[in-house]
């Protein structure tokens, strides 16, 4: 599919989504749908660095949390609209991505993953000690009422998150087919070889960090509006980091579709399990699914498909 056609289809999906508040009357599906879409954005953002360039980011919640806190800060200090909040979050995420990239220039693999975990805890400690952001107690975030057209705050943030998801997927797809994506793949295959054959690995790595960070931070921006409350423990939760890497892993990391499938599948199952199984077996199920996928389908669902076609 050509890029322009892809964008048209993506816009159609978004337009259809905008109609949903008029069609679906039950708000619950927007609550659950929001979470699923949030993970589509996170997983897609993660995959730009983790899938295309092969750098495993274990600290996605650092970016998510930074985005969420930036949005809450902008709202509290200046009362700006949610779009400005998202923009601000995006900028912070990209800067944070750049900083991470610079700090970790010399390391790869598990070391990079550990550095990103450290980033989460450093940021969390920072927020803990910032009185203005509510410290450890968290802050209440009562957003302005949503435009009447959407019929409710949740429908509104759902549509915004859908817009972010569409934008993130288009970005990912564009990266995939452009020279940037080829550069990323070269880095993943072998960084020294790429460097030797003239690929600007350093610049590309920083670019991947920044783009990935910006997208994941954008995913965090509407979160305070969604929960009307923000606390450091859930904003920097380890589980966000786990989901961010598990979803592309389940879907497949090589193309834009993998994270989307993985996020839709895993997040829906988690939402469903929360309101059906609803006990410790919920966590057990997640654990076992992760193990099963790593063992049985290491290249994700898409990988399985390609493998079976090749065979």
């Amino acid at each position: 599919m050509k890029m322009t056609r892809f964008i048209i289809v993506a816009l159609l999906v978004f337009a259809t989504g905008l109609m949903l508040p008029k069609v679906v009357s039950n708000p619950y599906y927007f609550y659950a749908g929001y979470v699923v879409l949030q993970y589509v954005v996170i997983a897609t953002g993660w995959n730009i660095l983790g899938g295309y360039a092969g750098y495993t980011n274990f600290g996605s919640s650092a970016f998510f949390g930074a985005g969420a806190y930036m949005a809450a800060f902008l709202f509290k200090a200046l009362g700006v609209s949610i779009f400005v909040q998202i923009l601000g979050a995006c900028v912070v995420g990209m800067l944070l991505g750049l900083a991470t990239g610079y700090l970790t220039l010399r390391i790869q693999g598990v070391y990079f993953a550990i550095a990103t975990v450290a980033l989460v805890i450093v940021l969390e400690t920072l927020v803990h000690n910032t009185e203005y952001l509510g410290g450890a107690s968290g802050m209440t975030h009562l957003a302005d009422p949503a435009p009447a057209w959407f019929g409710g705050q949740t429908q509104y943030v759902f549509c915004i998150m859908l817009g972010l998801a569409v934008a993130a997927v288009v970005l990912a797809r564009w990266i995939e087919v452009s020279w940037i994506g080829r550069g990323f793949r070269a880095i993943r295959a072998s960084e020294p070889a790429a460097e030797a054959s003239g690929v600007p690995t350093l610049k590309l790595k920083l670019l991947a960090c920044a783009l990935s960070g910006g997208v994941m931070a954008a995913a965090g921006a509407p979160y305070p509006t969604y929960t009307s409350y923000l606390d450091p423990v859930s904003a920097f939760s380890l589980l966000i980091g786990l989901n961010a890497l598990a979803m592309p892993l389940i879907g497949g990391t090589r193309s834009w579709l993998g994270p989307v499938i993985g996020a839709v599948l895993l997040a829906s199952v988690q939402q469903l399990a929360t309101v059906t199984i609803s006990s410790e077996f919920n966590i057990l199920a997640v654990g076992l699914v992760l193990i099963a996928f790593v063992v049985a389908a290491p290249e994700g669902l898409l990988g399985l498909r390609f493998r079976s076609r090749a065979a």
Partner: protein
Amino acid sequence: MVVLDLVLNALATGLMLGSIYALLALGLAITFGILHIPNVAHPAIVIAGAYAVVMTNRYGVDPVLAAVLWMIPFYMLGILFYEFYARSFESRGGGNTLQSLTLFFGASLVIEVALVVAYGTDLRSVSVGYVGSSLRLGFVAIPYRFLIPALITPVVVFLLWLYLTRTNVGLAIRAVAHDERAVSVSGVNPAAIKRHAFGIATALAVIAGAALVITGPIDPFAGRIHIGRVFAVVVLAGMGTIPGTLAAGIIIGIAESLVMSFMSPSWAPGVAFAILLATLALKPTGLFGAGR
């Protein structure tokens, strides 16, 4: 005088905390540092070990003794676990970072739930005579609750170091880490050696679990707060250096303790990771590690 008092006490506390951190990280220093397996489940295994110790302690068995007894079953479990890992990964040339991290994370979730199902979610602790009293040296007071676990670490580190540098199997473990193919050429089965090393790492988790539960009560999710810190210790030490792990643990412990005494306790959790980030940025091989 008051400042000196505080500094000395902070140093003593940091020294012990650090020693306990090192014990927690020791298993990981083998799995991650030597075998290059990012075993994120290690803290969860430590907690499982702690529960084993708590259950044995109910019959009046001393926690440290209980831990030593439990080492053998945990060694076996470690071997089984490694076998599972190897069959899923090593056969296709080793899993990548993403896959192994996810696998071990899944495993730690399973361990947590297993503990919840078996023992509930209440806080558990051990009862030993020396908890609640302390050793006084001048104006430094050292709680036995920290002193005993802290003293275990140097002993374990020394034994482990002897084992790895003075025995054939130990040398083989280090050789496997260094160059697997060369080892297999020399007639040693690298898979068996790795399995053995993983078993030892798992067995060490019980000792760490005993140390942790002597210092204070635990619940099934108590491992989560240690995941970052144990990796910090191993990386700061430099991959695979066993005495280095002790030193790195102590550095982090003392840094945290000083921050707690002289800045504010609420900054302390960030200290280990600020040190870690700095290490990774400036000297990725760690303080005591050789170049990779």
